[in-house]
């Protein structure tokens, strides 16, 4: 969805301090609130569906529940508990297959983005100013191009497949993570406890692993949830333009897309609402956890006020 919309991290790190930055090394004890638990339950539910879906789905993702009927957008009924889609297929089965594909692709892409972004970002923060400058400028260049445009060009050129989608999304979103982890690294580097470590004569590697990383991990983790959502929407947008997950494979974004006609001329609107709700519940679930975690990791005064 939001191409450059999601680069909400400050482009010039000294212009803003990150809102989830801890005041000190965090304590690792916190308890989930009610909403946190709700989020966890939702996410666990979808994870279970994603893992087991392809094995327990009543039909294959390209199979017809009623092979002799020529009728799309059927209302829920025995045999097709959520009805049928634009090509007469079983929606429930496709949602289950879609769970593993949507969550799998976006999870892997986000992990990839983090691996690239964090390594280069924190690396850049602790290297010499010149290396930092070069890496940052290259990163700026990537940031200044709209994500959806980059994705389009790459996917249209190479052809769409799941590995290509994961790689493209991973690389594109790495530039955001780079910026985020670099600015975190910069801020933490000059904090008292790190400077103290430097004064003690600890090595660079020690500082990264023992001081910077534990402090940066929590804000990065909270960002992970949001980033995951953006990747899901990015893939859906590509599907909308016909370059996402390939039919007949099901993913939630393309399910919304291919069944959009149901709102206009279908007998049932479940074909659109079901996958849209699936995306919505998953992202809301992730967000609830993120909010809970970030509330516990910093910015406590705001709650006390």
């Amino acid at each position, binding site marked *: 969805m939001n191409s450059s*919309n999601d680069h909400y991290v400050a482009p010039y790190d000294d212009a803003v301090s990150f*809102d989830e930055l801890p005041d000190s090394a965090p304590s690792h004890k916190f308890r989930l609130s009610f909403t946190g638990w709700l989020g966890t339950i939702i996410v666990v539910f979808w994870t279970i569906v994603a893992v087991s879906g392809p094995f327990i789905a009543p039909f294959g993702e390209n199979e017809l529940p009623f092979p002799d009927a020529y009728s799309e957008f059927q209302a829920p009924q025995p045999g097709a508990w959520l009805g049928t889609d634009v090509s007469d297929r079983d929606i429930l089965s496709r949602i289950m297959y879609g769970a593993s594909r949507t969550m799998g692709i976006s999870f892997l892409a986000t992990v990839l983005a983090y691996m690239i972004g964090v390594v280069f970002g924190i690396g850049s923060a602790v290297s010499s100013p010149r290396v930092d400058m070069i890496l940052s400028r290259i990163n700026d260049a990537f940031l*200044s*191009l709209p994500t959806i445009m980059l994705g*389009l060009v790459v996917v249209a050129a190479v052809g769409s497949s799941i590995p290509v989608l994961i790689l493209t999304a991973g690389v594109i979103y790495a530039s955001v993570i780079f910026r985020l982890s670099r600015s975190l690294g910069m801020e933490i580097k000059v904090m008292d406890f790190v400077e103290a470590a430097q004064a003690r004569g600890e090595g660079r590697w020690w500082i990264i692993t023992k001081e910077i990383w534990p402090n940066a991990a929590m804000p990065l983790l909270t960002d992970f949830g949001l980033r995951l959502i953006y990747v899901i929407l990015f893939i859906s947008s590509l599907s909308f333009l016909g370059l996402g997950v390939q039919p007949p494979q099901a993913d939630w974004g393309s399910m919304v897309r291919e069944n959009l006609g149901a709102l*206009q001329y279908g007998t049932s609107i479940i074909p659109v609402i079901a996958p849209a709700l699936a995306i919505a519940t998953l992202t809301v679930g992730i967000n609830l956890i993120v909010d809970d975690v970030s509330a516990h990791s910093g*910015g406590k005064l705001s709650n006390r006020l």
Partner: protein
Amino acid sequence: MFSLILKRLGVGLITVLAVSMIIFAGTKILPGDAAQIRLGQQATEANVAAMRERLGLDKPFIVQYANWLTNFAKGDLGVSLSSDVPITSLIGDRYKNTLFVSSLTALIGVPISLMLGIMAAMFPGSLYDRILTFVSVSLVAAPEFFTATLLVLLFVFALGIGNAVVVGSTENKGLFELIAHFALPITTLCFVIASQLIRMSRAAVLNVMSSPYIEMAVLKGIPRKRIIFRHALLNAIGPIVNVVALNLAYLVTGVIVVEVYFGYPGLATLIVQGVQTRDFVLIQGLGMIFCLTYVVLMLIADIAAYASNPRLRHPK
């Protein structure tokens, strides 16, 4: 302060140069030969060779890049491969549409979202705050085309207001007519940017609220409202302006789905068509325009951040 702005300008310029290299090299790597595309399927080899020479494609890579960049600096974006029309004339009308939609979206969407976000920050944890957070989270989760469809069904079909697709000429129309024309895409985009602006403005204000000097003000017993409007807000301007600028950049460059959905010609659809017809010259030109838009907006955001923040204006 001027030296800092100059420094930012320099950084922006370097970014633009880096992007130009990425774009140029990127489009060279893409499969397909520009001369072949321009001439079509039945072209003979001699014709293709002649066209390559005319387009300067037989020259070394570096020379091609330098020519392209100098032409771009002069405002000559080249000729489209798929239609033989200068890129600038393809862009003309679309840029107007895009600018109109994005500026109106910004004018409506940004103030409302910021108000909502700041109000949420004034009463953190309240029912209002929780509802707003929930709504904005749900909005983040909705794909643009889904939001757009719901809006079309609600306004056009249930209420009979607005256009499902933006058609007809936009010339010789009054402002209000134009607004009615683009009402639904603008509303859709407002929802898209609102979710993020609400979240970020709330976070930015809360972040400032947790800083020591505000804590001091609280201890002194100054009323909340006054703290937020007199002190916190001023200091939160930097980050907020930043998010706003990013969203504006998105409105100019990234609204592909909305443009395709509402069928109005804008810059983002043009790039989709460029990719589909393998029109490298078009992709290069638009890529540079997008990059320039981004860099300029970021520059403005930076200057605003400096102007509002005394600590940054007078560095130690």
